[in-house]
């Protein structure tokens, strides 16, 4: 059960057995959140900083609750990336926070590689809460936790990920994780958001959602952002909805016990119809619930073990 990382920068750096370690640890922490007194003393005396350069509700609160339920002290910094860019540099911001002796810094940033860069000069444990279009490792881990809960194993599962793959850090981390765990991954979206080179990740690509959904075990919908339309990645939301929205009709083609996932926030009636988002097969809120346990596990594995020193 070794987890010898100093930082959690991405799924890319983890082995399948390390991923399993995180999921197993999360399972043991899950119960804490169901207690009357939702707190264990595991990380008492540790200081954690939530440093968010992009807006976030889910991820930031999830990390905050995870830290608090482990009895760590956590503070939040929400900085507007663009105003920060004009004033203090990212590096100076981190060095200043570090002067207050935190143990870990959780970073979300709009630039890919920002957390890797931070890890080159920071003394703290760095946890990536989403960097640009690159990775969002705790999201992939909580998605994996949810899939494992419902499907028991990853081997041979047909997972369909639908939407703006090109700009999605959630998709990237999920692709890395699911391939490491032996699932079959099919990416679906309009061609400008789904370059051919992605097949080199060991995944299949399909531009036709009806075909791809056929026999799927897991369907993961991604949020589609309006600004992509402005750059002509697709002609209109109306056309996108016609071709790539998950509707009841399309979902019928999946396996009977298939599950519907979404990292949120969802655009009801755009990438997913409201009835699908709320149906019994949807595990969207379960993902959110599991997120706290998974983040408790990540904080514990990075901060709680005896071996503080390790590689990233």
């Amino acid at each position, binding site marked *: 059960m070794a987890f010898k990382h100093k930082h959690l920068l991405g799924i890319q750096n983890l082995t399948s057995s390390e991923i399993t370690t995180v999921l197993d640890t999360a399972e043991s922490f899950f119960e804490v959140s169901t207690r009357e007194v939702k707190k264990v003393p595991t990380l008492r005396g540790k200081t954690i900083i939530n440093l968010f350069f992009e807006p976030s509700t889910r991820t930031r609160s999830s990390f905050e609750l995870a830290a608090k339920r482990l009895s760590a002290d956590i503070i939040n910094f929400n900085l507007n990336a663009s105003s920060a*860019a004009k004033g203090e*540099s*990212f*590096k100076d911001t981190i060095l200043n926070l570090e002067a207050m002796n935190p143990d870990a810094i959780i970073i979300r*940033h*709009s*630039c*890919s*590689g*920002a957390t*890797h*860069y931070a890890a080159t000069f920071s003394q703290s444990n760095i946890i990536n809460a989403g*960097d*640009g*279009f*690159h*990775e969002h490792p705790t999201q992939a881990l909580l998605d994996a936790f949810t899939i494992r809960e419902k499907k028991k194993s990853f081997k041979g599962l047909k997972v369909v990920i639908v939407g703006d793959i*090109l700009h999605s*850090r959630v998709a*990237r981390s999920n692709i890395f994780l699911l391939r490491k765990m032996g699932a079959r991954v099919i990416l679906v979206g309009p061609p400008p958001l789904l*370059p051919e*080179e*992605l097949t*080199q*990740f060991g995944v299949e690509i399909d531009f036709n959602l009806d075909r791809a959904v056929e026999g799927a075990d897991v369907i993961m919908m991604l949020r589609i952002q309006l600004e992509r339309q402005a750059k002509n990645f697709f002609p209109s939301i109306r056309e996108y909805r016609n071709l790539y929205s998950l509707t009841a009709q399309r979902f019928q083609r999946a396996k009977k016990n298939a599950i519907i996932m979404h990292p949120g926030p969802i655009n009801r009636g755009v990438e997913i119809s409201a009835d699908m988002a709320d149906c019994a097969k949807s595990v969207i809120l379960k993902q959110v619930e599991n997120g706290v346990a998974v983040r408790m596990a990540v904080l514990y594995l990075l901060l709680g073990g005896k071996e503080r020193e390790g590689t990233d």
Partner: protein
Amino acid sequence: MRVLIKNGRVVDPSTGTDKTLDLLIEKGKITQIKPNIRASGAKAINASGLVVAPGFIDMHVHLREPGQEDKETIATGARAAAKGGFTSIACMPNTNPINDNRGVTEYILSEAKKNAAVNIFPIASITKEEKGKELTDMADLMDAGAKAFSDDGMPVQNSQVMRRALEYSKILNTVIIDHCEDKNLSADGVMHEGYYSYFFGLAGIPASSEETIVSRDIILANKADAAIHIAHVSVKGAVDLVKEAKRKKVKVTAEVTPHHLFLTDSLIESYDTNLKMNPPLRSKEDVRALKQAVKDGTIDVFATDHAPHTVDEKDVEFDRAPFGINGLETAVSLLLDKLVDKNVISLHRFIEMISTNPALILRLENKGKICVGADADLTILNLNKIIRVDVNSFKSKSRNNPFQDWELKGAPEMTIVGGKTVYSSSSLKNT
């Protein structure tokens, strides 16, 4: 003053020379080339075991003065050039203000005269303020001393403007140099578009952004019967276009940088901003095509695209770092080690690409050759010397170079400009 260079292996592609000879320099010119010259009172330099080449010319340098002297000045850039083995450098016009009028060109030349260790040849912009709209007063700029025209960094997007520039340039005996990039295709890209950009989550600059403009420029230059020089070719598709154009006798020449020859996009895994430049590091397949193009003559020139930036500017997130790397002090050793020592190309071909050809393209009449009457600009090389790159020993003001700690075989020992020694390594003692 007279200088006698003794017993060097004189290699000059323009005359086909490759022989151990003495060179006598008088009043900044080469006056004798033969074995065993006797010249009493001349300062003697023992070049035995060393290569004496026509002075190297880097036709793609950013000196940052006027306007951004925190990155580089004409004086520091010239010192870096001298140490790197270059006797002449051509500086791009994207200073502040832009070199788009006689005043700026004259300023650069007067600063160069006062402070520069090597020859400085200004390149003026094609359009006013590099805005891609109105042509500069090209004849007046040439009269002031500009040697070529380029909107490097802010390449001309409007094809009609480029067409007019090429047509007009014909009355001037000059060349238009283009950084070929369709800004709509490259958009907010920061690295080569492909597997690795998708992997690292960084916005891509597609090969097509270079290929489409190379293709456009070749078509326009052919129609205008004007000379076009393609700056820093980086992709296979562009190489293929240049090769085909040369076959059709279009007046096209092309350059390549050491970093595009020796580094690939996969290295950006580290998000090291010293790997960020434009055009970006490309794929392995592109690198292979570039090396082949150097061998088969499709690419004519080695140039550095020396682009100094301060440490602080580069010590940021990858997306936010400026494009460009420092190149003057590593180029010669990189090329000697990776291409000449590894027998990819001959020493002769190397010198042709770093001295003979840039002199021809920039129409520098008495440079790029060793013959009686030529300017006494010489680069003396030690092909066996092993050096280790250390950015902290750079003469340049900046340190943004990705080759730190590389061990390389072959280095400049002495740089002579107009008969005057402007750089000498500690190991070469004058006798």
